[in-house]
């Protein structure tokens, strides 16, 4: 919202600079995001006396002058104005001056010494428009006789310079959506008087229910609480006077004509949106405020045909809608050059209805913006009359003394009590009651009753946001200035809670993954439907109803797409290797649900490897990552979290190993298949592990705390076992059997050799396991382990047809 610095001075007097005012407004809650200077400060422009003025030898329309600009300096200046003459006092822009007009290329005009048609010119004698003082370009400005050469221009003319504040208005402050409202806050802080541009607030005597020339009725009184109509006759539609145009252009509005400009002016002055109808275009001399049960096609005055949803409020004449209430007028009744009688509308429309229509049409206007936040229901008449008087003044019309003011819903004034103790308790201050009283009075709260402990006050009708005591406390604090509230010497800290186990666990997971040399990524949790479908069944996908685009329409059912997208992104930019992890939430529909019924939102860990394990280097050959690299990371991580004992691993498919705790699936490691890689535009191999942290946390939480075990006192003994099995036997199965059979002395199993070859025969392979045995009570000898080996070999032979190789 744009607020003019100079315009504010119409309602409150102050000397502060624009920057100071911006700071004051910001600290009262009207955040000034930007201050822009409008017009020129006229520096470099001074009074000059035209000494001589002769015709230019080479150009009929130009004149060559000599101008005294004070301190004995006389400049030769070529001038094209028809009215220039010797003896005039004029305004001269001296070389180096930047004028507030643009050249055709958009750059500002800067005055330089030059030759014009062969004659030297060292400045410019200026017309009104060239100095941003007005629109007149018919000739140069001629100053009164008493102006003295050399005086700076800003001392002899009003420079018209202004500053515009861009205010980021919060939705709770509809009262401040106009100059008077902003001035009210400013006056309260500066402790100055606020001059209002109107006097009549009370219901006037001239209101008529039945007007001979216009019948006004409100059908939907729940949507329109008040409607004022005033007729202004014999207006002459013209461009607005200079002062009005200047006000509007300063805040970025385009002047249209005197009547429309007057309504816009009052909107930005008082915050009351107004609409002017061409009375002669209204059929039946009638206005009805009503909504329809069906959609309505309506062309607004921006010449857009709109399909307005049922229930939206319209202003209609006898036959048809003529305005979309509170949002925009209709093309069929707008003020035109031929308008002679104006019906001026000033109304209070209910905020929710306006907001619904505005949102569904995607049409927000200065008017709807204010109505949907809640305007002052008591200002309806005063604003209408203020506008009517301006129209009468600048368009030469007569205001019909009889007017309509229907007011079916009268809002009751709110009375709120402020307890001093509560005020000081919430703020941590030591205010006295009179300090609160004076702040609230300055903001036009009507103080009804007060004693040393509390006050009762009536909330002004323009403050719909103030409904309870805490709102009054905020008013006092913000006008006082938050920054002036003293900071306490110390703060209270109640006994801290234990950090949740989940938080501690997640921190350990993240640290473990990082220390295993994985890089953390943050992937997008909204996916394209075609991507999401690769990772969950159609009926499991959760969609947003209003996605920005198809690319971000579905919530991620898995962290794997995030890995693959990041992998593809980096491989396509020259990376040769990726090693990523992510901790994040996934989303699927389910019959049960986690936080909300039917929605399974869970935290997962993803670890992924892809591309090269090692680049070609002098010490080793180039080598791709293999799934075993990922598995070792995963196993170390699970070990570091002290939960690997509870897990068992099973091959689910030829490319996927799953981890189970009992029968519960907790995660898996897999080789990403070629088709999927192609889908993500990846040529390198990629391996991914995903684990449900929600499940792992549960396991870890049930785990006994870590207790120290004495280190073995006796050395262990290694035994190498080479087994010959058929090629389709899984090594993992042999290992499981081996571990299950060997008893408690077996401390570790290491697969030291795998080979297949002609010597073994067709369809056979050999796997070498190195077993390490340790006894806590004695040094083991080969004899001690022989019996164990025998048992293991017999079991392996029985279960897997394995034969011991000599």
């Amino acid at each position, binding site marked *: 919202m744009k607020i003019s610095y100079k315009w504010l001075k119409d309602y409150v007097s102050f000397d502060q600079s624009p920057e100071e005012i911006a700071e004051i407004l910001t600290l009262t809650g009207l955040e000034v995001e930007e201050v822009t200077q409008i017009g020129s400060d006229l520096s470099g422009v001074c009074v000059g006396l035209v000494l001589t003025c002769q015709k230019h030898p080479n150009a009929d329309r130009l004149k060559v002058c000599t101008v005294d600009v004070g301190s004995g300096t006389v400049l030769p200046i070529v001038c094209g104005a028809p009215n220039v003459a010797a003896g005039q006092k004029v305004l001269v822009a001296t070389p180096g001056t930047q004028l507030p007009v643009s050249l055709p290329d958009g750059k500002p005009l800067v005055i330089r010494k030059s030759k014009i048609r062969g004659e030297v010119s060292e400045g410019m004698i200026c017309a009104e428009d060239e100095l941003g003082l007005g629109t007149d370009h018919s000739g140069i400005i001629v100053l009164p006789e008493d102006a003295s050469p050399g005086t700076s221009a800003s001392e002899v003319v009003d420079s018209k310079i202004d500053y515009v504040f861009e205010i980021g208005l919060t939705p709770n402050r509809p009262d401040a959506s106009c100059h008077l409202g902003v001035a009210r806050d400013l006056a309260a802080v500066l402790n100055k008087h606020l001059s209002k541009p109107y006097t009549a607030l009370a219901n006037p005597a001239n209101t008529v229910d039945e007007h001979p020339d216009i019948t006004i009725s409100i059908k939907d009184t729940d949507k329109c609480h008040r409607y004022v109509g005033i007729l202004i006759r014999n207006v002459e539609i013209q461009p607005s006077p200079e002062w009005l145009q200047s006000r509007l252009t300063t805040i970025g509005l385009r002047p249209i004509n005197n009547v429309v400009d007057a309504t816009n002016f009052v909107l930005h002055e008082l915050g009351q949106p107004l609409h002017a109808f061409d009375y002669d275009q209204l059929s039946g001399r009638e206005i009805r405020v009503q909504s329809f049960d069906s959609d309505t096609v309506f062309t607004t005055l921006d010449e857009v045909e709109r399909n307005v949803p049922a229930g939206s409020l319209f202003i209609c004449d006898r036959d048809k809608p003529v305005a979309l209430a509170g949002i925009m007028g209709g093309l069929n009744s707008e003020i035109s050059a031929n308008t002679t009688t104006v019906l001026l509308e000033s109304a209070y429309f209910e905020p929710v209805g306006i907001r619904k229509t505005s949102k569904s049409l995607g049409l927000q206007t200065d008017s709807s913006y204010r109505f949907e936040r809640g305007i002052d229901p008591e200002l309806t008449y005063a604003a209408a009359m203020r506008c009517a008087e301006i129209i009468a003044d600048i368009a030469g019309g007569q205001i019909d003394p009889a007017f309509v003011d229907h007011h079916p819903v009268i809002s009751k004034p709110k009375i709120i009590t402020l307890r001093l103790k509560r005020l000081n*308790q919430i703020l941590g201050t030591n205010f006295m009651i009179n300090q609160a009283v004076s702040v609230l009075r300055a903001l036009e709260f009507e103080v009804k009753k007060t004693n040393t402990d509390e006050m009762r006050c009536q909330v002004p009708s323009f403050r719909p946001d103030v409904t309870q005591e805490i709102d009054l406390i905020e008013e006092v604090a913000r006008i006082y200035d938050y920054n002036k509230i003293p900071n306490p010497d110390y703060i209270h800290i109640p006994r801290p809670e234990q950090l949740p186990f989940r938080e501690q666990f997640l921190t350990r997971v993240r640290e473990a993954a990082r220390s295993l040399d994985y890089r953390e990524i943050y992937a997008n949790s909204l996916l394209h439907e075609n991507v999401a479908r690769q990772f969950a069944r159609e009926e499991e996908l959760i969609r947003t109803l209003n996605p*920005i685009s198809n690319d971000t329409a579905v919530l991620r059912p898995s962290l794997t797409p995030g890995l693959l997208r990041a992998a593809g992104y980096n491989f396509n930019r020259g990376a040769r290797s990726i090693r990523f992890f992510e901790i994040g939430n996934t989303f699927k529909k389910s019959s049960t649900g986690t936080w909300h019924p039917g929605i399974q939102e869970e935290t997962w860990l993803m670890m992924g490897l892809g591309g090269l394990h090692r680049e070609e*280097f002098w010490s*080793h050959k180039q080598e791709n990552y293999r799934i075993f690299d990922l598995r070792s990371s995963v196993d170390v991580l699970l070990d570091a979290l002290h939960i690997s004992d509870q897990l068992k691993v099973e091959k689910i498919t030829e490319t996927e190993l799953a981890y189970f705790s009992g029968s519960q699936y907790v995660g898996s490691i897999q080789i990403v298949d070629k088709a999927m890689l192609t889908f993500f535009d990846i040529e390198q191999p990629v391996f991914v592990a995903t684990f449900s942290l929600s499940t792992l946390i549960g396991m870890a939480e049930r785990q006994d705390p870590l207790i120290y075990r004495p280190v073995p006192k006796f050395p262990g003994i290694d035994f190498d076992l080479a087994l010959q099995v058929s090629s389709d036997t899984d090594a993992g199965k042999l290992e499981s059997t081996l571990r299950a059979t060997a008893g408690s002395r077996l401390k570790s199993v290491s697969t030291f050799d795998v080979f297949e070859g002609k010597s073994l025969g067709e369809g056979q392979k050999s796997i070498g396991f190195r077993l390490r045995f340790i006894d806590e009570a004695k040094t083991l000898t080969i004899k001690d382990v022989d019996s164990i080996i025998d048992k293991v070999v017999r079991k392996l032979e029985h279960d897997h047809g394995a034969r011991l190789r000599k």
Partner: protein
Amino acid sequence: MNTDIESIRQAVRDFKIENAAQLEEFRLQFVSRKGKIAALFTGLGKFAAEERAAVGKVLNELKNEAQQRFDQAKLNLESSIHTQRSATDDITLQAPPRPVGSLHPLTLTLEEIKKVFYRLGFSIAEGPEIEDDFHNFTSLNFPPEHPARDMQDTFYIHKDAERIDKDLLLRTHTSPVQIRKMLEQKPPIRSIMPGRVYRNESVTYKSYFLFHQVEALYVDKNVNFAELKETLVMLAEMVFNRKVEYRLRPSFFPFTEPSLEMDIWWEQPGKPGKWLEILGAGMVHPNVLKSVDIDPEVYSGFALGMGVERMTSLRYGIDDIRIYYENDIRFLEQFQ
């Protein structure tokens, strides 16, 4: 015999050992069991018993001298191997690269913020990213159809035909976790709520449809605005690790009153200083406390919230929010 010993001793001392072959020759001649010194020992039997001890002693000294000469020469030869090293013995050769782990910059910032709050006695709480309207809006004093809802453009998951507070949506802030925390625990409550949030906004260098927040909530008897101020100042100074110049501006959030935003004065070399917003905060609105059955006449509280991306961008001078989610290694590796 003695002359033999002396001449051998001299030979041991004079023997040139400059390469492995000479070393081997030396070993064969003097150190080996079949060498000259060993031969002298075999001759020891010829001596009378009373002489044997003295000669034996001299012989042993010789044997030790030869052994020492050999050991020393061998060591010298081995350590002077650089004069004939192989190409891969060059210790200035580049060491092979190895992968490096790193945490995402957003995690780094979040961890810093957590540390500060832990020092101030806060715990931590989490909640779901898919929320219902009750937790995300209604209980936080966002009335249905209020323009305040426009401040947070929302992705909806499910629109309930009957009750707006049963709509499902992607949470637009982490404040619903405050509601969950207050529903499950009576005051005192002193906790932070970090997490991912979503806004239906188009993607530009300064906005993205998801980002991360940390909020903090303190509810107890007699919690006041002055204490909130002091907490904010401590927080800012600990996060930025310096004294900060700050200002508090009144602002508006439906769930706090009075509400504020905090700016800190930010100077960068070669640029004019400016106020930069770092967080929003306020006293918990009585309507919010009522919605979770906490009596606002007995308890009061403050809440504050900040954007993790924003804080990270300030810390590291990052000017494009999109880079956080691209996961470009060339970006990530700067934070290892």
